[in-house]
């Protein structure tokens, strides 16, 4: 390589190339950091996790290839089915978040005395940590010292062991999760309602639209962006079940309130079965992928309309 042959290139080419192409190169460069970190910490670990699920590994000794045996064991594991069942309960129950949130927002969307302070009170549950939510609710439902049983005793009801009960523990934890979720959805809908076009509603009223009709055909369509976000955050919230389960019940009693995330944690870090834990994670992934694919599909279809 001689210097003379490079010289004209150095002087002109990079400069004009950049000038000609910066309009599309700059965005790519700007997206690059996000793409890189995302690949390293999200995409690659997902595949590592899937690979690991075919091994037997305690985290210290060499990994041993075991094929599908983690999965066959998993599908025969009673706790696994219980966890899946509970996960589905979480997802379904969390869909109540948008429903209750909308109901509350419709109610609060009026001018009563001190409404601003009232709105603030509704707003607080969302900003506090799930760990604290779990503690407070765990205490409220505690069968010995909880407020609930104290309140019930005034009405002559026998003390209930809800959080200690095999059939009820999951629902107590879900209730704790719903508390901030409902207030979040309420805020979303309230913001949507405040910004809504009042004229359209008035016009619809003039035409005789009332009650459910008004809500279903006039108000809800205008709240669609709010509904979209509310559903997204509710699904995300339902998947954060780990925090509350680990604070409130540790998956107990007898694994009755466990969820896939907690079961994976238990198997991996308490029983040191990394491969088995990875298999649980993979199953959780597949379930979520189906859900996400459905979600993306319906969103994009709606967008295209």
């Amino acid at each position, binding site marked *: 390589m001689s210097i003379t042959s490079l010289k004209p290139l150095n002087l002109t080419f990079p400069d004009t190339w950049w000038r000609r192409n910066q309009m599309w190169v700059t965005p790519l460069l700007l997206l690059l950091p996000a793409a890189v970190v995302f690949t390293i910490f999200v995409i690659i*670990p997902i595949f590592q996790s899937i690979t690991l699920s075919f091994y037997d590994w305690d985290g210290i000794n060499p990994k041993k290839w075991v094929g599908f045996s983690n999965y066959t064991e998993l599908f025969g594991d009673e706790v696994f089915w219980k966890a899946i069942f509970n996960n589905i309960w979480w997802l379904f129950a969390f869909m109540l978040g948008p429903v209750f949130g909308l109901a509350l927002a419709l*109610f609060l969307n009026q001018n009563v005395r001190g409404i601003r302070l009232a709105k603030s009170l*509704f707003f*607080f549950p969302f900003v*506090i*940590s799930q760990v604290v939510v779990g503690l407070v609710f765990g205490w409220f439902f505690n069968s010995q010292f909880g407020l609930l049983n104290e309140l019930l005793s005034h009405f002559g009801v026998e003390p209930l062991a809800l959080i200690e009960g095999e059939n009820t523990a999951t629902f107590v934890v879900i209730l704790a999760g719903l508390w901030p979720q409902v207030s979040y959805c309420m805020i979303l809908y309230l913001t949507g309602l405040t910004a809504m076009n009042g004229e359209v509603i008035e016009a619809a009223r003039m035409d005789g639209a009332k009650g459910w009709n008004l809500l279903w055909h006039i108000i809800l369509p205008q709240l669609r962006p709010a509904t979209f976000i509310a559903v997204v955050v509710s699904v995300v919230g339902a998947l954060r079940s780990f925090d509350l389960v680990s604070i409130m019940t540790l998956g107990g009693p007898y694994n009755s309130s466990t969820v896939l*995330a907690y079961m994976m*944690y238990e198997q991996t870090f308490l029983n040191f079965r990394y491969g088995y834990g990875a298999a649980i994670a993979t199953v*959780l992934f597949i379930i979520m992928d189906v859900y996400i694919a459905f979600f*993306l599909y319906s969103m994009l279809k709606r967008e295209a309309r």
Partner: protein
Amino acid sequence: MARRATFSRRVTMTAITWVLAFAIFFPILWMIQTSFKSELDAFALPPKFFNFHWTTENYSVVQDRSDYFRFALNSIILSGGATLLGLLVGIPAAWSMAFAPTKNTKQVLLWMLSTKMMPATGVLIPIYVLYQWLGWFDTHIGLIIILFLGNLPIMIWMLYTYFKEIPGEILEAARMDGATRWKEIVYVLAPMAVPGIASTVLLNVILSWNEAFWTLNLTTTTAAPLTAFIASYSSPEGLFWAKLSAASTLAVAPILILGWFSQKQLVRGLTFGAVK
């Protein structure tokens, strides 16, 4: 909305509103007042409601026993660091999606948001192993990176919706005046984007502050934030309700105060800027 309400109807509505608000807020209120009770009063049956001997003893015990300020400092470092890093990576990405969109931008954005729906559990084991190997377990840098990544999709989405509101004509005008892309960003876009960025920052600080899954799993002591601090109180000493309440109150206090003063921006943030 525009209908005239009768007086009695108004009174009923006001009453119901306040009962609902009180019911929603009650758990927090109960926690705060319990933190000022003695352990004996905390257990008293029937429960005492404001008619007890107020004491701040729990707070000093909690500070003595587990050094609240160290955990609080960690919370500040982690949520601040994660948010800063998020801005550094998120602003350029959101910017290019908002101002140089291709026909796939919307898909990419939705896909990114959907990864937020992925359970973090799915990558816990590889991340855990990676962190042990890197020596990042229980370090600030490790936690900052993971918190930053957890919120990145939401950050980009939010910033994107804010940036999209900036009218394109202004950019055209700047370009006509000979501004380069870089100058466009610094002198034209940045000033207009400040409110959006502020809301994004607030929401992300709160989300990182409250994040429990990663902080509980990837820290022990050195980098443990307030979530770990409360969790440590919940297990072995679970029956000291007053102290537990004091610890919880201390842990949520900064966020409650921050939330109170920045409600307006936060609401905008919480709605991802998608609901106006």
